[in-house]
């Protein structure tokens, strides 16, 4: 089971007939080719570095006054938006654009649908809302009816995809719809011939959009994926759209048709094309792909120098140990096709360029399955070489050559004992799937296939390094650790051994930890928690059961922010991991092994930090806006 299934425990609601919000169909003005700055898209930019420098947020600015214990960084607004937030907001020109995973105030009154809010960051006022109802035929198997991606705000437009399989373009100022392209069902008006609903009649979920959109540097093409990892009959596609019209430029199917041979763009599986012949430029493949699944959920990254896009892929369907009960396990890796890896395509044409699959030896346990890459790639330079960084649910952190996708270096991020042996409570795979928090030996875990809920589910953030601080700080990456805790094996990661965020020295040949560690077994970060003597609260890493870093950290100047499943937000010094500041967004949902709670990462714009979450109460969601307040006179 993957993160979507794990986190989708929101009650299903009565489904009403499909009804769109007021539709204004049109054409967006031509792109200007000027990309904005700030947190205007997922992780801040098409390379998804998650790094912001045009801000006054620094260690010096947010460190609490030792006399009063208060930090100038405070919650300015706590907003209840009418549903849970399951995505990182975008921020542009002083406005937050945030989507809801479920919207309880849909126009049809059924509460089955989604919404995108536009919020004034300085006043906390919701100035516009775009919402949609969800018809019965669009019911999402994960009970999500809204959206789970970060919108992209550029060229006076807001772009986003939703769980109904539709991709929207709105006017940035008014949130009026300019165009919408259906990526689940054929939309020939937009040159979209795919109908991706196989298996839906058997109870499997339909194709959905989880990926945050990305746009080319000249603003003429945007990229988004649509598929579904929990449906063994479902195809997965990468779409290149015209930002002005929503018309499809090209389509790439990530389900390999023939062994040892990459697919060609615009060659579509016949089972996913209802109207034949397909529009000009497309052709069909009449056969069965060698593997299903391989869906792209993580945001696609774009590199203008190589003119490439990089698409993270999920596990194959069916999985070799999907119905395992006893006996020898079948290792999932290597897996067929473009599963469990990173696919690189030509941004102009969709032509296949390279593929990387996480190696078997990178698993924390040999028995790991449902490997997946749910994170987004990050593109940067290392020693003058363009590289792509990708993280994996198996706990792997990989630095790849951006052209060939060959491994430059990698490491496992989950902790081991100092003698190199596994820690029993990390990535435990109990044979008894119904036992709650069982005590599982390494022998049992290593011989029982299981999903690694302790690995990495989200995107790394880059601190590019600095030499103009009091001391030189090497480039480093920050990676949230752990996945959903809605499972029996344990309430999230083993908080006593596993940090909810890793700091990796990017220059290190072995990608060693960038922050000082103790000499315990296993070794832990020294500065990432502290006891608040006045309150008796032990705050920070290694303190709260089940607290996972299922989020994408964000770096601003010399501060790294990370959100967790507790549901909390933290700020650490990039130098040494000193815990600077923290706040709670809300509580996890009630019951069952702690329930679940999610904040998928902060967004940073100038002196503001914004985080939305899925929490207990409050219609299931909350959005908090933090900002620097002047010291009291």
């Amino acid at each position, binding site marked *: 089971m993957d993160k979507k299934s794990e986190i989708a425990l929101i009650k299903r609601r009565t489904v009403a007939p499909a009804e769109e919000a007021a539709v204004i169909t049109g054409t967006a003005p031509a792109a200007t080719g000027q990309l904005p700055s700030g947190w205007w898209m997922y992780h801040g930019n098409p390379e998804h570095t998650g790094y912001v420098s045009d801000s006054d947020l620094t260690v010096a600015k947010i460190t609490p006054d030792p006399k009063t214990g208060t930090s100038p960084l405070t919650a300015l607004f706590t907003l209840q938006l009418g549903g849970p937030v399951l995505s990182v907001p975008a921020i542009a020109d002083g406005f937050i654009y945030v989507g809801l995973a479920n919207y309880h105030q849909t126009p049809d009154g059924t509460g089955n649908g989604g919404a995108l809010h536009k919020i004034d960051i300085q006043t906390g006022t919701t100035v516009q809302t775009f919402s949609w109802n969800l018809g019965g035929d669009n019911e999402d198997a994960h009970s999500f009816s809204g959206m789970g991606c970060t919108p992209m705000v550029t060229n006076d437009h807001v772009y986003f995809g939703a769980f109904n399989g539709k991709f929207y373009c709105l006017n940035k100022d008014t949130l009026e719809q300019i165009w919408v392209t259906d990526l689940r069902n054929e939309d020939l008006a937009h040159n979209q011939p795919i109908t991706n609903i196989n298996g839906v009649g058997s109870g499997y979920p339909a194709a959905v959009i989880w990926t945050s959109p990305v746009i080319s540097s000249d603003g003429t093409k945007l990229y988004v994926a649509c598929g579904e990892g929990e449906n063994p009959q479902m195809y997965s596609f990468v779409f290149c759209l015209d930002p002005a019209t929503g018309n499809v430029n090209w389509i790439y199917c990530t389900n390999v048709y023939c062994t040892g041979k990459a697919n060609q763009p615009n060659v579509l599986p016949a089972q996913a094309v209802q109207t034949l012949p397909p529009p000009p430029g497309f052709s069909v493949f009449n056969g069965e792909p060698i593997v299903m699944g391989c869906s792209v959920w993580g945001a696609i990254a774009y590199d203008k120098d190589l003119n490439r896009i990089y698409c993270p892929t999920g596990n194959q369907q069916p999985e070799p140990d999907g119905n395992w009960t006893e006996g020898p396990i079948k290792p999932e890796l290597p897996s067929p096709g473009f599963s469990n890896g990173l696919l690189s395509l030509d941004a102009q044409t969709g032509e296949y360029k390279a593929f990387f699959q996480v190696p078997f030896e990178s698993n924390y346990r040999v028995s790991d399955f449902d490997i997946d890459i749910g994170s987004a790639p990050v593109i940067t330079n290392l020693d003058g070489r363009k590289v792509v960084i990708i993280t994996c649910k198996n706990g792997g952190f990989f630095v790849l050559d951006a052209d060939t996708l060959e491994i430059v270096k990698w490491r496992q991020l989950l902790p081991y004992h100092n003698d190199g042996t596994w820690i029993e409570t990390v990535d435990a795979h109990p044979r008894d799937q119904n036992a709650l928090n069982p005590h599982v030996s390494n022998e049992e875990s290593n011989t029982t296939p299981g999903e690694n809920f302790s690995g990495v589910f989200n995107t790394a953030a880059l601190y590019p390094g600095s030499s103009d601080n009091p001391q030189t700080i090497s480039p480093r990456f920050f990676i949230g650790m752990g996945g959903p805790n809605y499972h029996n094996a344990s309430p999230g990661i083993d908080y006593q051994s596993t940090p909810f965020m890793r700091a990796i020295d990017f220059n290190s040949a072995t990608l060693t930890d960038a922050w000082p560690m103790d000499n315990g077994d296993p070794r832990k970060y020294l500065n990432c928690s502290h006891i608040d003597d006045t*309150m008796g*609260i*032990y705050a920070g890493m290694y303190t709260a059961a089940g607290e996972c870093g299922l989020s994408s950290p964000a770096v601003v100047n010399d501060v790294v922010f990370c959100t967790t499943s507790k549901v909390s937000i933290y700020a650490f010094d990039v130098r040494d991991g000193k815990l600077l*500041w923290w706040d709670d967004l*809300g*509580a996890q949902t009630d019951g069952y092994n702690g329930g679940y709670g999610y904040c998928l990462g902060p967004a940073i714009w100038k002196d503001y930090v914004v985080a939305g979450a899925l929490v207990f109460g409050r219609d299931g969601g909350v959005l908090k806006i933090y900002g620097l307040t002047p010291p009291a006179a």
Partner: protein
Amino acid sequence: MGKTQVLGSRSMVLIFAIVFFTIANYGCQSSTNPTDNKPLSQMAAPSPTQVQVPPWPSGFPTSVPPAAINGNLLFAVPLPTTINSPLQIRPNFDYFSWQSFIALNWPASASSRGTPDQPNNPSVFLSAAAGTPVVWGTYKDSFDLFGQKDQRPSSWDSPSSPITPCSNVPAGQKVLMFTTKGDTALMQTNQAFSFPLIDQRSNLVYYDVRYNQAQYNFVRGQDNDPTSWLYLLKNLTPKENAQFGVQMPMTTTAPTNTLGSIMVKAAWRIKTDKDDASRYYTSAAQIYNSQTKSCTPATVLLVGLHIAHKIDPFTEWVWSTFEQVDNVPPDSDISPKPAPPPNGYSFNNGTNTPKTTGGYDYKPALSPTPCPSPGNASQPCPKPVQVTRINAIPNTPTGASTRDFNAYYQQLLKGTVWQYYQLVVTQWPFNPGIGSNGPFTLMQNGGVYPQGAGSAFPVNGAVNTTMETYFQTQNDAAGAGGNSCMSCHYRAGQSDFSWGLNRRAH
């Protein structure tokens, strides 16, 4: 908000106010006992016995009043004038816990439910015969309040309830239930949100939840106002949905000393021939078996006692938990190691085997067959659970820790069964209050533990090995909200921290 947090100035004002009232009223305690509300004719003639109460050890803070052997519940927690940290005032709360323990375990008045017999006469307590009913033991049972189906619970003074599981049981005698899964919400052999506990004699441990007069009457409601009958879900729900949920009566000194809500949960195990009953408070009981619909008499031994008291200004209650000292081996840092109890531990075989990861070796089935099995004497008895204590009894602050208070009070109570009990921990809200007086926030309104629960202290690790056996670690207790009284009960915040009210209203 931004951290690091410190005790806010408002809280300090509050604390100073508490101190003022505490000091101002402390001297009035002995004259404001509930028995004072009774006519003189109903009061037993006092025959006070002088008991020399030894002074506190030198390390104990001066803000803690002298210990006392009396049956008077405190109306305030005595606190120092300056409070720098929660740890500083742990001795004050441990004192409160021990004095509450004595008062609640005081022999009960035969004529008035829930009140002590001659509370100012220490000899009544010190020379009580085995099995003498105690004050809390005469409180109404949760079955009296929530198990009456369509019938209205009887009034506080009524000796019986409309529905009783065992017929011909003397009034006031305990009825402990062995129920099978799904029989009833009153799972008196299952721990809260968890599993049963089986002692070293292979017998189940039984649980007993009781409410004092203020809490019982509040939930029972007024006869002439059916909307106030909160044991009915239809009446409870609207009140739970209020901004701060249900608010039960709180013990206060203003304008006069008034006793508020107290809820007690006890853990009992069955006395066998192998047990030394002189080390336990014992009680006659009837064990009701829902499979056979029959009741079996037994003598039960008190092995654990939770006390929750809503006392001004601690709107999030003060939580004290006690255990019998023979339950499990002492904390590992105790040196020299005391000898095992003469008849062995109740929940540990005295060896390191089997291993107790998380404080237990296994979780029994939800409905284990009792020993001996009714109607099938040949069926093997359930396997005992090997239990160890994960969260040590606090050894801070140095010189006046919970362990130090235990040593003092055990010496004070020498010669009684109560010397064989120990305070495991006291937990309280360090920054209490609701509305304009404090930070209490219901979880559904965005509250987060521990801040939203009044900044509970200690935050974690406040459990009783007999009642939260399987929730000793944070990991194991994640589903219960955490491994402490307040983290768990905060999830019933809308029912004023009462899971009984939250789960058993019907």
